[in-house]
């Protein structure tokens, strides 16, 4: 298996997050299902990496593995996860708990279930701040109010004492963002943060996330199925298919000049405003189920450009312009 990782600009320090050959498995009685298969990438400080894919691609599980919230029977079966040079995937639960929240924050899809309905927003924030930072309750309260104000919630000192159900959907997600940022984490893993929101609110939340992370220097791993959100927010994007990395590179490149046939098909199948078309590009078939992943390249049965090698050997992540793509077609015509 190739050692190629996505190559960000060279820094003296190691990347903030390094994921090397990550493998997530689900043992079932019918055999072991590999939900994430040999995925490697890096996230630099302050960078926004989008992880995009359709349902079943394994992107959420990758995020959960990084935060350490994989539910049984799922488990990390191979590979390493490094945070700022230190390995975190094999830490005992107590050490992992301290990292969660303090150094890695999380934002999930449904703000309604991310917040405890019996706690006021203020209590959520103060509790998290006090757990991870050496501040008094009064200081924590002031910091929480400031954070709520930053996220655009009006009258934050009053809103502190409201319960989640008293907030609208968009406000709740703002509160969740505030909660994720309150302990000043270095990385935020956001799993479909805008999927449950209306389109106009989505635009606001994306803008907010981008601005705050830039201001605080927080890196973001943005997991979503929505390419539009990626286009607006991410510096680089990784495209996942059937638990594997299909393509990774700068957002503009991947969206406008994709190399992997799956990414090409994906971009073609998205209806775009301002583009008149008689027929959307269609990728026939569906993503394979985890218990029926084809040999060789997982995409080959649906690929219009497949050839012999694709059916036998799983492609390595090969250089493709400024990024990388896992496709044997790139070997024939390597970009200089």
């Amino acid at each position, binding site marked *: 298996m190739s050692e190629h990782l996505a190559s960000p600009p060279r820094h003296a320090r190691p990347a903030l997050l390094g994921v090397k050959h990550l493998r997530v498995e689900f043992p079932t009685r019918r055999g072991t299902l590999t939900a994430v298969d040999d995925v490697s990438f890096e996230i630099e400080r302050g960078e926004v990496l989008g992880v995009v894919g359709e349902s079943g691609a394994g992107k959420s599980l990758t995020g959960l593995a990084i935060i350490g919230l994989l539910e049984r029977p799922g488990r990390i079966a191979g590979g390493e996860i490094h945070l700022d040079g230190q390995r975190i995937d094999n830490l005992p639960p107590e050490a992992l708990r301290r990292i969660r929240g303090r150094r890695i924050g999380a934002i999930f899809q449904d703000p309604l279930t991310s917040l405890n309905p019996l706690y006021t927003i203020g209590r959520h924030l103060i509790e998290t701040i006090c757990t991870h930072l050496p501040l008094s309750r009064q200081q924590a309260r002031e910091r929480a109010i400031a954070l709520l104000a930053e996220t655009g919630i009006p009258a934050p000192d009053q809103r502190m004492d409201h319960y989640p159900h008293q907030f609208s959907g968009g406000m709740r997600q703002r509160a969740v963002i505030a909660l994720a940022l309150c302990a000043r984490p270095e990385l935020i893993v956001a799993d479909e943060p805008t999927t449950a929101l*209306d*389109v106009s609110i989505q635009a606001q939340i994306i803008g907010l996330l981008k601005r705050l992370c830039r201001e605080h220097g927080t890196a973001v791993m943005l997991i979503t199925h*929505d390419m539009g959100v990626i286009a607006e927010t991410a510096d680089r994007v990784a495209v996942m298919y059937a638990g594997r990395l299909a393509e990774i590179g700068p*957002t503009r490149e991947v969206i406008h000049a994709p190399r992997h046939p799956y990414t090409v098909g994906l971009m073609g*199948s998205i209806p775009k*405003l301002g583009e008149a078309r008689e027929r959307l590009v269609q990728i026939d078939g569906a993503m394979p189920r985890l218990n029926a992943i084809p040999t060789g390249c997982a995409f080959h049965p649906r690929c219009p450009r497949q050839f012999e090698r694709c059916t036998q050997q799983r492609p390595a992540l090969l250089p493709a312009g400024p990024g990388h793509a896992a496709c044997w077609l790139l070997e024939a015509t390597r970009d200089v």
Partner: protein
Amino acid sequence: MSEDAPLVALHEVGRDFDVSRAWLNRVLEGKPRQVLQAVDSVTFAIRRGETLALVGESGCGKSTLARLIVGLYAPSRGWVEFDGANVSGSGQAQNAARRRMQMIFQDPYASLNPRWRVWRIVAEPLRAQGRASSTSALRVRVAELLEQVGLSAEDGDKYPHEFSGGQRQRICIARALSTQPEFLVCDEPTSALDVSVQAQILNLMKELQERLGLTYLFISHNLAVVAYIARRIGVMYLGRLVELADTATLLARPLHPYTRMLLDAVPDLAMSARPRTPVAGEVPNPLAPPAGCTFHPRCPHADQRCREEQPQLTNLGAGEWVACHAVEEGRVPRRERPAGGARA
């Protein structure tokens, strides 16, 4: 019946829901009745063979409107016409007319009875309408329908859980087409599907429309999808229709401030960094809508009249309708969008 007569027409359709708490609770707590106006004064028409789309965000009433048209709810005000006949009540004539329309729902996982085999699901409308001759004839027809939507005849013996989301939606389409309806109401049929599967289903729907001469009412919150599939678009906000125009016109020269806001909020895949007005505020609580024009708290052009008087849907000519005082009074600057979606 003239060629120009619309197939479906709505006249000032409105629907209220009584969401008051139980009588005993109300009496004990001294609270008044609470009525939710889900849809109010909606008027439009759909021509035969056309696809009209309704877009809007949560709480705008588009799903309620869909259910009003197919008869799942009765309108509180106004009426629905199908092929010239009033179908908003119950009765023989109404039921007969309703048989010529069908509906496709949003959630492919909940729209199929998990305990029924697929062939039985697809054959149900035929049986219900008394068009079933024998079981073997039924199964032949079901096989035909399944193949028409891209599945195979053997899939009839399976259960819904054996299929993916996209395949289930195909089964729903097959079921809807079994009695050869003329009009299909599609309530967010692709919102729960992955993007590549969505493309398959949208292409299928277009193909079927051409082949079978169907008329669609397509409801969605996704403007890009709607721009692709519909010839005309209606924009809804808090139960009212605020703008109605041809797709090309709406995208190139949106008039209503809410339409503009929606268009600006759509993520820009072209990454062109075009200038956009930042989106303001959130959809207000439908139980307590703002007075006057319900959009005024979020509108950059709101004035005193907007805060007091609700605008009516006015015909601006060339198939364009707008409900906005500012547009009528010419206070909204004209805005041309570069390379607006050019669908004829």
